[in-house]
């Protein structure tokens, strides 16, 4: 019996954002179907994986994660180069040193680091602030300026501080991560505010604030599915590509961090468990519509890429 393949006729697609410049620039988004349902639309760009680099030694990382990086963790430039060697499509630099509790570095200080990292790598650079909204608003004008022309992705811009971050993106030619806590209406509202400042919608990436596997991933999963359905049915303010802070969230989970198991249970070896915690957080959110994945362990990156190679083949009908 010939089964007629049921294809949805989507009327619209996800915006395509370019990050970086030169031969290693990457494009994200552009999808005209749900994730990897290539029988009814296109998935023109592979998901982009960025490895995270911080300008502060990552005290709170578990040994298994620190060991994967060796001795570069105190030097953001060496660390970023190593990320590229590990096969990262992009580097995500966190300017943690600007955090009031972690040194309260000045805009000039962090800008110098950002510039040094950008100059040392040939892949696109994502620059993240320290997460304190006022401080990020303070550092980004300078950071954005020293990176002028590099077409970086910078953020996170929130309802509180988007003004400053979007302004520097506009002047210096960067794209912006628009961050709102797990609410489709808040995401939309922030995108409207940002586009009203005349930043084109193909220079915005949505951060829905994910949770890791076991720690709220289901909320992000559903918000992202709804955003993708919105994008495919013509809602331009939900049609931006989506970034997922996978490493940050999954390495908080004790299933990833703990070497041993809780009393009375066997969780198996830490390596497999921890890598799977990070990769499956990513691959699950890939199914929900994620485009850009920030990870921490180089082996997670490799496993994720192997999966992408397999799933990108699409079903044949």
């Amino acid at each position, binding site marked *: 019996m010939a089964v007629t393949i049921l294809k949805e006729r989507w009327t619209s697609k996800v915006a395509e954002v370019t990050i970086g410049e030169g031969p290693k620039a990457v494009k994200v988004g552009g999808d005209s179907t749900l994730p990897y349902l290539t029988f009814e639309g296109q998935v023109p760009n592979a998901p982009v994986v960025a490895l995270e680099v911080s300008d502060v030694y990552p005290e709170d990382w578990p040994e298994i994660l620190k060991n994967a990086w060796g001795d570069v963790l105190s030097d953001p430039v060496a660390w970023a180069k190593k990320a590229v060697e590990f096969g990262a499509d992009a580097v995500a630099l966190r300017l943690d040193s600007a955090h009031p509790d972690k040194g309260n570095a000045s805009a000039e200080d962090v800008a110098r680091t950002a510039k040094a990292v950008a100059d040392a790598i040939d892949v696109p650079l994502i620059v993240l602030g320290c997460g304190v909204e006022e401080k990020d608003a303070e550092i980004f004008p300078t950071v954005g300026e020293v990176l002028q022309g590099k077409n970086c992705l910078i953020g996170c811009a929130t309802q509180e501080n988007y003004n400053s971050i979007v302004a520097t993106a506009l002047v210096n030619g960067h794209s912006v991560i628009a961050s709102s806590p797990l609410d489709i209406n808040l995401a939309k509202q922030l995108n409207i505010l940002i586009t009203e400042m005349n930043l084109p919608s193909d220079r915005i990436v949505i951060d829905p604030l994910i949770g890791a596997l076991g720690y709220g991933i289901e909320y992000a999963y*559903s918000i992202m599915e709804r955003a993708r359905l919105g994008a495919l049915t013509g809602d331009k303010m939900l049609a931006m590509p989506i970034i997922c802070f996978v490493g940050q969230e999954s390495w908080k989970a004790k299933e990833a961090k703990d070497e041993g198991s809780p009393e009375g249970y066997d*969780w198996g070896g830490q390596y497999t468990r921890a890598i799977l*915690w990070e990769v499956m957080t990513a691959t699950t959110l890939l*199914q929900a519509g994620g485009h850009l994945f920030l990870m921490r362990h180089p082996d997670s990156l490799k*496993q994720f890429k192997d999966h992408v190679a397999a799933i990108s083949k699409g079903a044949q009908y």
Partner: protein
Amino acid sequence: MALTGLEIYKQLPKKNCKECGQPTCLAFAMQLAAGKASLEACPYVSDAAKEFLGAASAPPIALVKIGTGEKELSIGNETVLFRHDKRFEHPTGIAIEVYDDMSAEEIAAKVDAINKLVFDRVGQIHEVDLVAVVNRSGDAGKFVEAVKAVQGATKYPLILISSDVNAMGQALEVAAAGKPLVYAATAENYEAMTELAKKYQVPLAVKGSNLNELAELVEKVTALGWKELVIDSGAREVAQALGDLTQIRRKALKEKFRPFGYPAIAFASNPENPLQEAIDAGVYIAKYAGIVVISSADPAVVLPLITLRLNIYTDPQKPIAVEAKIYEIGNPGPDAPVFITTNFSLTYFCVAGDVEASRVPAYVIPIDTDGISVLTAWAAGKYSPEKIAEDLKNLGIKDKINHNKIIIPGHVAVLSGKLAELSGFEVIVGPRESSGIPSFLKQRWN
């Protein structure tokens, strides 16, 4: 094909007697068409109408049960494509393979490992659901021996995997009482396999080599009079399987395409690469598999899958909450520390688990935040100093302790001043993540 409300209405008695619980026959017809009511609710439908409507009023995806007793697994009966529309009903059954060409010791060891795959999450015990015995040897005798051995060693229902009708017949002789899933009827053997399933009244998997062949085979099997089915498009690569599982679910729900109106089974087994096996299995859990089969019994592979299944299948409308009261962990005395958290079950069980791990007896008090996490509740105004102070007063924790200290989550350090003022407690700011509690207690509590 799906019937419209009007088409159904024509077949109803039109008495408008309300006995079906609907105000009118037409309203009842609309409910039936939407799959929200069952024809049995009307005592007056004629037999002819029943026959005509039977198929149309059946749920779009059948409910299938495997096994018996406590470990019986129900799959199917799904009604939506996206979990934000309405929750997914029956969590994907996780099956682990055992091969009949393994030695008796190897089989025993693997079944033992499977039996031990038990995890505690948010206060509930989670396990795998099925053991799949695979006739990899091609030998009927070995298959029967393996089935016997597995059956004797585990409480989980079985999937019997063999394309050899003779081997299957012999295995069912020893295993049918446990209501295993017979895998599988194929183009070559479907008549005999269906006979076996009927004879032993056990669920039957139907396996095509693609969607077309699957649909054809399902029609043939149902024509032979057996409808307790689980379906397999034969796809073994993740990309094809994702497409097929999506088509099966879509066609069943949106077109009421009968041949696909059964739960689907997907195979992720990949012994050479357990990480990719887990990743593929994760895709199938998110995307519509009723059963997913894997080869690994490594807890490090199974724990993430069980966690993902729990996440995908929770009700998006209702967070799981625990009762807001004073919990005593490990027999706390009057000098024991007091931890203040929220009643989101994930939050509570993280804290309770880590307090337990510290081996310091303690009180843990979840404040009623309508079941949401610390920061979410704080941002939503449900974890305010006023609310916490009031709850602590009502719960009477003061009467249980001889000190005046409470410990709050590090994430809400900002609360401490106001909370101290309102409650009269000395407020100690704990670590941000509950995993820091054991070392925190070592340093700060004596």
